[in-house]
């Protein structure tokens, strides 16, 4: 194996660190997007729960069914 000079080794190390940095930054963004989506999902779930327990709507749906018959 040919011997690498100090400068070449340095460049190699920097290059690999740059790659890792880029990958991690991407990961960071994805992580952020995931948490945004998670929050949104939680919010929607809360919304659903709220409406499910909202009596007039339940009653309204029942009435609709009844009238349909």
């Amino acid at each position: 194996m040919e011997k690498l000079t100090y400068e070449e080794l340095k460049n190699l190390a920097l290059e690999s660190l740059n790659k890792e940095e880029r990958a991690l930054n991407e990961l960071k963004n994805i992580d952020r997007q995931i948490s945004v989506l998670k929050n949104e999902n939680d919010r929607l779930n809360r919304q659903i729960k709220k409406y499910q327990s909202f009596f007039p709507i339940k009653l309204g749906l029942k009435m609709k069914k009844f009238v349909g018959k």
Partner: protein
Amino acid sequence: MSMSNLKIRERLKQIKKIKNSILNDQQVPEEQSPFPVVDLSHGVSVIIPVHRGEDFIKELIESITKQSLDSRYFEVLFIFNGEYEASEEIFNSLDKPFKHKVLYAKQGVGRARNLGINNASFAYITFLDVDDTLSVDYLKHALEEAEPYTIVLNQLHEIVDGRDDHGNNVINRELKNKNQYPDQYFDVGKNLSLNGAKVVPTSFLLNTQFDEELNNGEDVALYAEIVTVFKPIVKINQKEAIYYRYKGQGTLSRAKVTFQFNVLDRIHVIDAMQELLRYEDDLDVRNLLIDRMRSQALFINKYLVNNMDDYSKVTDLIRYKQDEFYPYQQVNKELSKTLYVSYCFPPFVDTSGVVMAKRINEKKQPVDVIYNDMTSVRGMDPSLEFIANPYIDSSHMINSVSSFSNPQHIKAFVEKALNRTDLNKYDEIYSRALWPGSHMAAFDLREAGNNLRWVAEFSDPILQDIKNEERKGTYFTLKEVKKLQAQAPEDYGKYFDTNLFNMCEVLPFVFADEIVFTNLNQQQSMLARFDDNFREMVESKSTISIHPSLDEYYYNIEKHYVNLDQNEFNIGYFGNFYETRSANDILSIAKQIQTLNLKAKLYIFTNNTSKVRSEVIKEGVSEIVNVYTYLKYFEFLNVTKDFDCLLLSDANTKDYKKINPYLPSKYSDYVTSGSRIWGLYEKGSVLQQLIEEDNLLFGSELGDTEKIEEILKSFNI
């Protein structure tokens, strides 16, 4: 396995550092992989600490001998520790047709297991207690399922007094009807906090070991840490691999409730998990940690149920462990005998609510609390919960429209409060009012609870406002008033009417078992409108109790960021200005400082900054006076320590009232600060009495500019 955002940021910082070192031709520190690479052969090491256990060792060896796994793939490590002589003798006499090592350690189950881990020669580890056994295929089926970065959960059967429960126990039930790979750690939380019945990669355990200081609960702390650090895959073994845990008479499983086990050891385990929680931002892992902390707290609760005399001893150990997630509620579960009714209560920012929290803090007894959702009229400061939380069992927030005087809204609060509480568990109700809702609810609760003992505290006169005008608002119907009159002794009925603010005083006066006033003037002023007979009746059951102060710890919870020049003499004033509490005297002080050319500054913290600022400019003292907005409560406590002098001002009531019934509650906050207090008092007020009694306090009557000059000179600035 997702790396959390925090760790990514940490690594990015690290990369930047390394890159800088390389570019500057400096040496780069050697890196450590977060995942230890261990070159161990495929197989499972069984780790068995032996302390006592002479009655079980024979059965244990038999159970291992019967294992169906090829003996090339497993080894057994016996770690003798503590008292083991008797079991060692039996052990030596037995035939052991399997690979095994014998090690010795000082007493301690964590220490013994760590020794075993460090001497294991296989890539997976399973733990076994000396008084437990394994099913025939346990090791075989466990090893078949074992994978790197994976914790395998096997089945657990409890044998209580010789009867096998066939897996019908809380731990094993977690595994039933679940996917092979559970969605969340939380779903198998109980399994992830005990040692038995699982296979763990040796690499995890070499990295994260048992806490040798913990007498027990070391497994809870260890698995919490493994899950936090490695975020391992968890897999439920679908094949039969049963760990038999023996319980009941004659076994080593403990059952006795002791202070050491139930309190001290549990506090250590909770501490360890609190530390993990601090740096963890994965929701799934956080849920697991919080859940485990809560179940640890239930052990403390179990101790308290039988040893209520030790309640303050126990809470003193944990009341300063302030954290949003500290499981105080579980510690206090079902312990409270008093129900506190405070219409406004932390986290809502309101002086009367904070005083109620301080009362709870002062009494050091477990309590339940009812309060109203004040979102629409008050800000929120979750840190205020630090004051009372260590003592709260359950707190009920009622969702009703907040109002000081609207009868419909207050009635809604009262009704919801009645529905939310189970009054059978209480001996006493304690209500405190500035907000009339508190006493109105307490009155109904007391009645519904078969005349529970009722203590009612007044923060201020309720019927008469600061200008001595009567507040008005119809609450009761005439019919209701008649009914109430019938319940009261005949002489008192004449004071009953439909007015909310009148009844908010009269009902507690007549029906409460104890009345608490915050000062003597308040008592006299509030009782002045009644006849002698009534007044004597109330006086005989009333107590005078000044606002409680918090201890010094709370003055250091939060750091303040007020820019104080330490070379100057700094004077602080906290409060708002109204018609009855003018800024005149404060501004006189500023003007005196200017005329005397003193090295002093005045800091005013108030809600209405722009108005006060313009006043300051108009008076030409803007060089001396700094105006800031209100601080958060704990920031305020912290800054009081740094002022050279704190100003306290009476309300100006002499134009309206015979005696001044108010004592600024800030006095109680100032007292612990250790700074000088300067009271601007009204003649005959409680503040004046306090100043006369205490030489450390300075005082000048409102409007007395000569005295202001004298005091400023006495400071020798």
